[in-house]
């Protein structure tokens, strides 16, 4: 599973990688660049299908939480 993410907070990458480990998935690639506006990251994960589904859902939740206030 690959995820191309635009994050407000670079620390969220660490949170996502921790979750992957917790769900018995493996983060196989992290590419990220960051500037004053956002962090753009491309991540790849290996793992059981169900775990990857759960991970993707949790990533979506993190993205929703950290979206800038309107």
């Amino acid at each position: 599973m690959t995820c191309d993410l635009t994050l407000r907070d670079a620390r969220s990458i660490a949170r996502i990688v921790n979750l992957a480990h917790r769900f018995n998935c493996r983060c196989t690639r992290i590419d990220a660049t960051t500037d004053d506006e956002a962090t753009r990251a491309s991540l790849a994960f290996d793992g059981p299908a169900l775990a990857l589904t759960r991970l993707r859902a949790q990533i979506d939740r993190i993205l929703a939480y950290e979206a800038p206030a309107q």
Partner: protein
Amino acid sequence: MNGAQTVVAALGREGVDFIFGYPGGAIMPMYDALFQHPVRHVLCRHEAAAVFAASGYARTSGRVGVCCATSGPGATNLVTGLTDAFMDSVPVVAITGQVRTELMGTDGFQEADVCAITQGVTKMNFLVTDPAKIASTLHEAFALARSGRPGPVLVDIPNDLLKAQIDPAFAESQPLPVRAESRPRIDDAAIRDAVARIRAARRPVAIIGGGVRADAVEAYRTFVSLLGLPHASTIMGLGAGSYHDPAFLGMLGMHGLKAANKAVQRADVLIALGMRFDDRVTGKPDRFARTAQVIHADIDATEFGKIIRPDVTLHGDLRDTLEALVAELVRTQVPRFDDWAVEARLLGGPLPSDRVNEHVLSATDVLDRFFAALPENAVVTTDVGQHQMWAAQRARPTHPRNFATSAGLGAMGFGFPAAIGAQFARPDAPVFAVVGDGGFQMCLPELATLRRYKVPAKVLLIDNQNLGMVRQWQELFFSERYSATNLADNPDFAAIARAYGIEAFFANDPAGADETIRRFVDHQGPALLHAACHPTENVWPMIPAGMTVDDLMEARA
């Protein structure tokens, strides 16, 4: 104006009336700003109690609960309460002092990377690095805590920023509204699909969860009464279903009522509303409600398919969703399920009794009498364990904000400080904490908080001289090997309460229990009732972990 004054001013703009906390070095400037400020600080006797009090305040009021602590140990002591708030979707803002910026990363005295520590148990946390952003960060934290699926947010502020002088232009950042994107537009097609399935159903059942706290109680009651629908509740949803409604089946799950569990298992359409199919509800997910089509409504799309695969998803605020369902139902003829509701209720029966000895006080008898003696507007918090389940089976809350418990995390030590927070939130309501002898000893010093602020909250202590729930599992599943659960050397709790200046009652005789309970409930001011109960009474019914209602136990084998 300095950073700390900015913090307190921002709290004032957010409408904060109480902040629960404990001072220490790094956060001292904020305590100086709080001195004689209209935002009242409530000194708890442990940071863990402060965050539970903030949670109790939030759960029983619907407003954001606020707590604060110093850096290092103060901040790390908040972790359990933040996790509890995260699991139960409770809006809490925690403010922590941090060591001076120049000390960060040097393993300074009382330095802890609380943002890293709490990253997985908060919706988000912020380390403020610019004093000009203190106010705006706090306002964002409040908006985030209450937006969408509520939850805890932590703001960590270094000591030098709290002392820094701030340009007033930056200090007056304004509160933010609830995020618009956190209230998704209701999908009309999904509503029509859900209603079509309800119309075609023969045995539909609704389950209400903690999502009902989003001001959805009236909409929920309208929905179920419109259909005559049998409905059950998770422990987080208790109070949403009216106990005067014969179609309300009570709590479901591991220690839920038989009718609720059996009806759900027989349902052909399950309408899951603001609940997340916790394992304490489903047992074994692949055997849970096997014959049912599932309509799942939630504000958090992450919940869809996490445990149970839904046939229809209704993503949105629960009140919006319920109002849309009702509008679609009444557009044409409304189906009624009264006969099925009667049948569903008959699937259960009275709660099984586990009275072991008629001459020794039974915990369930005490709780039956206690709940019968409570006024309708009573607010009850519980701790975690057997008494929590007995209370959840027997309580009759008239609103979800009248019953607060650590549900998802199951954090012992929650109940008593949560009651203190609840009493600050609801000064006119009679507030009671139902606790066990294990959990109460995790927060005994809060008797001092009760005394200092003359908080009239009362504590019903169910003392069975055991960590009862663990003991019950040891009896049933670990060959009666009672490892580290015996608390027969408990102290004299009434004497301890009196030492703190709290009125105390004691009951151990079934004959006089009624009168003692009445005096306790009617007592004006804080009080403790120490009920010394039989040590081996179990919670029934019980569906063992990972099993289904087919495996339901109502007594020892």
